[in-house]
């Protein structure tokens, strides 16, 4: 079987899997961004309880493995009466995990805004909320974007693990094809290439574009 014939036969399945991977990535990214912003801000709070809660969340999710978290959410949560469908369990686990890493980026980005900016906003009698939303966060966002690009690639890679709870993503399809045909190089190799294209031809250019737009908006072009 030539590689062309292989693609002819199994290409559509691989593409279906890639669509599922893309969906998992999008949903997990949305969740991760939300969690990152909330937890990142909580980590800057002076309230010990708020700060402590965020710290525990971040340390637990960063201190254990994504795979462990996926299994736990899928197999153990039902024992607490919370049964999630495998597709949902998949992106929630990935989103919660990467959100913990993102929270540290948010925190670091906000702290990197020069002190003078905080003082200037305070001197203009801005409330803390307005100061954060209008002055600090936009500047922090610009600094955060490059590391978020890397984090989103990590997130895409992380979604490959949802195949292990039988979500029919790209990884799952590649394994299935491998299991029935034993054409391992073709099956896994094609999947690797598709992941690479998604990382470098979709996520990276998108983040570059976003950076350009943000830079222009903030007048730093």
């Amino acid at each position, binding site marked *: 079987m030539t590689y062309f014939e292989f693609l002819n036969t199994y290409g559509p399945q691989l593409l279906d899997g890639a669509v599922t991977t893309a969906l998992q990535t999008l949903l997990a990214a949305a969740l991760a961004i939300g969690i990152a912003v909330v937890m990142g801000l909580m980590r800057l709070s002076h309230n010990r309880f708020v700060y402590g809660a965020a710290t525990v969340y971040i340390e637990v999710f960063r201190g*254990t493995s994504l795979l462990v978290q996926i299994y736990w959410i899928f197999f153990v949560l039902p024992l607490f009466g919370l049964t999630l469908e495998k597709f949902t369990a998949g992106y929630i686990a990935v989103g919660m995990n990467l959100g913990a890493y993102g929270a540290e980026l948010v925190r670091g980005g906000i702290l990197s805004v020069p002190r003078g900016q905080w003082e200037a906003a305070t001197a203009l009698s801005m409330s803390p909320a307005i100061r954060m939303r209008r002055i600090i966060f936009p500047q922090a966002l610009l600094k955060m974007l490059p590391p978020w690009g890397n984090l989103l690639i990590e997130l895409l890679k992380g979604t490959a693990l949802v195949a292990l709870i039988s979500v029919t993503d790209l990884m799952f399809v590649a*394994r299935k094809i491998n299991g029935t045909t034993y054409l391992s190089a073709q099956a896994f190799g094609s999947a*690797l290439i598709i992941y690479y294209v998604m990382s470098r031809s979709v996520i990276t250019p998108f983040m570059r574009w976003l950076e350009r737009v943000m830079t222009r908006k903030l007048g730093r072009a």
Partner: protein
Amino acid sequence: MFDWRWAFVADILPRLLKATGNTVLAALLGYGIAAILGLVFALAQRTAIASVNRTVREVVEFIRSTPLVLQIFFVFYVGPQFGITLSPWAAGMIAIGLHYASYLSEVYRAGIEGVPKGQWEAALSLSLSPVRTYSRIIIPQAIPTAFAGMGNYFVGIFKDTPMLSVIGVAELMHTANAIGSEHYRFLEPYTLVGGIFLAISLPTAALLRRLEARIRRKMGLRPR
């Protein structure tokens, strides 16, 4: 609904702890491979030969942009297709070593590039040889910068070892899965696995942070 059984925990804990040994071993072996291979990747990207430069950069990019779990499958299954059979351990170590070598090469590179240009110029103005410049001036200053990244990836490799379970390496996750399907109970094994990971990775990370601060202090550098 909530039914935590301590007797079961006592029953399975020794087995899990034994598997933890394998997990730690896998992390150490994988890191050793990655640390050396990463240096090769980093230096290859600093050579003047453009084709070597480009090729290594592309390979590093590719490895970094694709999932480790898929790479583990790839290494494990592609060998036999061409008549080379690798044990799960060998395949796992190759995959994890390669994956993290690509990360570490970037850490090394960033460390070297993070040394200010003035340091190279001062070394030049004092006529220090290239070997001395690297060994006495540049690398000592690159280490504190690189150390944080190297430490993060050490903890990272440790947390990625559960992926080795997919090809049957008898580490912690694999053992927990086995226990789970033997007893039809997943609560205790999976929770314990999470706990063991936390119990190892948090102190390790804290220790590495303190070590980093100590290195910086010893070298007379400002704390980060």
